[in-house]
């Protein structure tokens, strides 16, 4: 019951006028970036992060997480109304959300999406509340080899469960680590891999890379795919919302299953995108109305939305307790934590309970406020998308480069953002996953430090990673995930039918 007492303390931190105000601002900004093409949650949080450098960490994290919730809601809005996923994680929502909206039931589609998103997020926060004590006690037993094993596990699960081609995921992770190594080495203090370029002395900021990969890259892709806004009118009728609300309990099985899938994928870094696809596939397999999927089946909206949001929320648990982000956005926030001078990991719960529990309490509030706010503001945000791309596209370009500059006031970063914009575009075209690169960039130094400290402890023997039951289990699990794609093909036959 320690957790409950801590949670109430958290509510006393979160429930101040200032924090609720930031929550509202964050959610509205989040919906905006979620709705706008090219601006998603990871990118939105990166753009806002430099403006929080001087803020109190509790206020800053509330602002950023609220923005994340808002972006998730905004992403589903455009999926349903315009058939354009505002976020990669809301792609699965287009499958049934848009057809249902086309049938003239846009309000129902949106309500199903937001209500199940709210439900998924609440399950995610409850899981965090219940598990954080356990994870924290567990993590306090960690020393360098265990930390490295957990980082290793995170990357292996990307390779094994991420769904992207295995070797391309490896390249993506490796590039992230390599980029993280540029600049000052945190152990020896030597300046590495700068190749005599002054601009590289300070390293390459992951925030600028995120803005390039996710922002500029996504914009180029949007242009190529031809932004066609065949929008459906979005007028939200309260009576329809209430009617949909009354229908929700009928979908309890889908809701629960999807929330569990989401929590699992959020805690093991599979991420919200993989969670939403997996959950959609499962919902279709178990549904009595399989034929209705793809034509506007409510379960086809509920499943990906619930999983998306519970994964997004649950990803905060490993971020706080272990310092391992479960999604690209969580990775950016983790970077933020370090910039604000906090040290993510089990000691955070001991040193800054006000921060951790204030954040968890704000997640309860933020999601409830989010559902109401997004239902109220959908028509307004949908109208933003009707602004022609000739205006909104360049405006987003400007905002991305302004964001890249504010990270460190370095003109060189404009080139970095532009360059990574092209890289992001090519990576997406050729099916290289981007999230692992960001993750590797953010935790690269920490993973390397853990690796080196482990080897110092063992005087260079790699057997240190099997020196006790805990680290051995983690490493074995990681290696199992690593060979999973190959093993699955051998076990379940080569002709695996393509997943939806």
């Amino acid at each position: 019951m320690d957790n409950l007492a801590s949670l109430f303390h958290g509510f006393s931190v979160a429930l101040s006028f200032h924090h609720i105000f930031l929550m509202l601002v964050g959610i509205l900004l989040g919906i905006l970036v979620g709705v706008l093409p090219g601006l998603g949650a990871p990118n939105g949080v990166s753009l806002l992060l430099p403006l929080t450098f001087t803020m109190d960490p509790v206020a800053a994290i509330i602002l950023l997480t609220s923005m994340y919730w808002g972006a998730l809601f905004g992403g589903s809005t455009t999926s349903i109304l315009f058939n354009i996923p505002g976020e990669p994680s809301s792609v699965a929502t287009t499958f049934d959300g848009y057809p249902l909206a086309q049938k003239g039931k846009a309000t129902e589609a949106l309500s199903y999406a937001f209500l199940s998103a709210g439900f998924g997020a609440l399950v995610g926060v409850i899981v965090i509340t219940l598990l954080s004590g356990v994870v924290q006690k567990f993590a306090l037993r960690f020393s360098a080899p265990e930390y490295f094993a957990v980082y290793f596990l995170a990357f292996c699960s990307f390779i094994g469960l991420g769904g992207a081609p295995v070797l391309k995921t490896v390249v993506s992770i490796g590039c992230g680590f390599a980029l993280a190594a540029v600049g000052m080495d945190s152990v020896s203090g030597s300046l590495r891999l700068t190749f005599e370029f002054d601009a590289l002395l300070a390293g390459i900021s992951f925030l600028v890379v995120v803005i390039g990969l996710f922002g500029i890259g996504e914009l180029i892709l949007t242009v190529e795919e031809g932004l066609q806004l065949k929008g459906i009118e979005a007028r939200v009728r309260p009576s329809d919302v209430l009617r949909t609300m009354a229908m929700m309990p009928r979908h309890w099985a889908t809701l629960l299953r999807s929330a569990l899938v989401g929590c699992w994928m959020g805690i093991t870094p599979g991420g919200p995108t993989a969670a939403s696809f997996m959950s959609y596939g499962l919902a279709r397999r178990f549904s009595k109305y399989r034929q209705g999927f793809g034509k506007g089946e409510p379960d086809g909206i509920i499943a990906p939305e619930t999983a998306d949001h519970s994964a997004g929320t649950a990803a905060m648990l490993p971020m706080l307790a272990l310092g391992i982000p479960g999604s690209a956005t969580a990775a950016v926030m983790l970077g933020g934590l370090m910039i604000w001078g906090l040290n993510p990991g089990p000691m955070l719960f001991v040193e800054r309970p006000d921060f951790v529990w204030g954040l968890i309490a704000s997640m309860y509030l933020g999601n409830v406020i989010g559902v109401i706010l997004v239902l109220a503001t959908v028509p307004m945000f949908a109208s933003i998308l009707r602004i022609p791309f000739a205006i909104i596209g360049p405006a987003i370009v400007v905002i991305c480069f302004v964001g890249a500059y504010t990270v460190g006031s370095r003109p060189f970063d404009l080139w970095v953002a532009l360059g990574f914009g092209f890289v992001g575009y090519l990576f997406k075209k050729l099916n290289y996953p981007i999230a692992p690169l960001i993750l590797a960039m953010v935790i690269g130094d920490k993973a390397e430090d853990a690796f080196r400290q482990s080897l110092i402890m063992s005087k260079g023997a790699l057997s240190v990673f099997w020196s006790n039951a805990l680290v051995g289990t983690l490493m074995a699990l990681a290696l199992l995930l690593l060979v999973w794609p190959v093993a699955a093909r051998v076990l379940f036959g080569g002709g695996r039918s393509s997943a939806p």
Partner: protein
Amino acid sequence: MISRKAAEIGLASVTALFGTVIAYGATEFGVGWAPSGPEPGTFPFYIGLIVLVASLANMVAALVAGDGTPLLERSHLKDVARFVVPMIGFVILALLLGIYVATFVYLLGTMRVQGRYGWGRSIAVSLGLPLGLYALMEKAFQVPLLKGPLEALIGL
């Protein structure tokens, strides 16, 4: 037209080169064992090698089984160029004249030429955004953006 296969091979060569550069650059700092533990270059060296090997494997995969369909339709290539070229122009302009002036020129240009808007609306939007940014960044958040000779001239 660039085929998907060619693009796969091209990108794999770039990542292979990147891995090589990282691994080579790391050798400068020692990649072995020193009395104080692994030398600073060790970790990046092996990361570079992993990237190199995985890239080569990707390259072989593309050579063997790459599909020859074009990466981009010709019409899409034109759309992308129409978006990317002004964006590069914006970056160069921002470095020369500062972000505010570059924003004005960039928006005015794209709205007039690509959006075919009238002068009135184009000027209103392309002046509005930098002014709004100025109010938000410099006044509200006190975060200065890159400025150029024009701002110096009017004493900002």
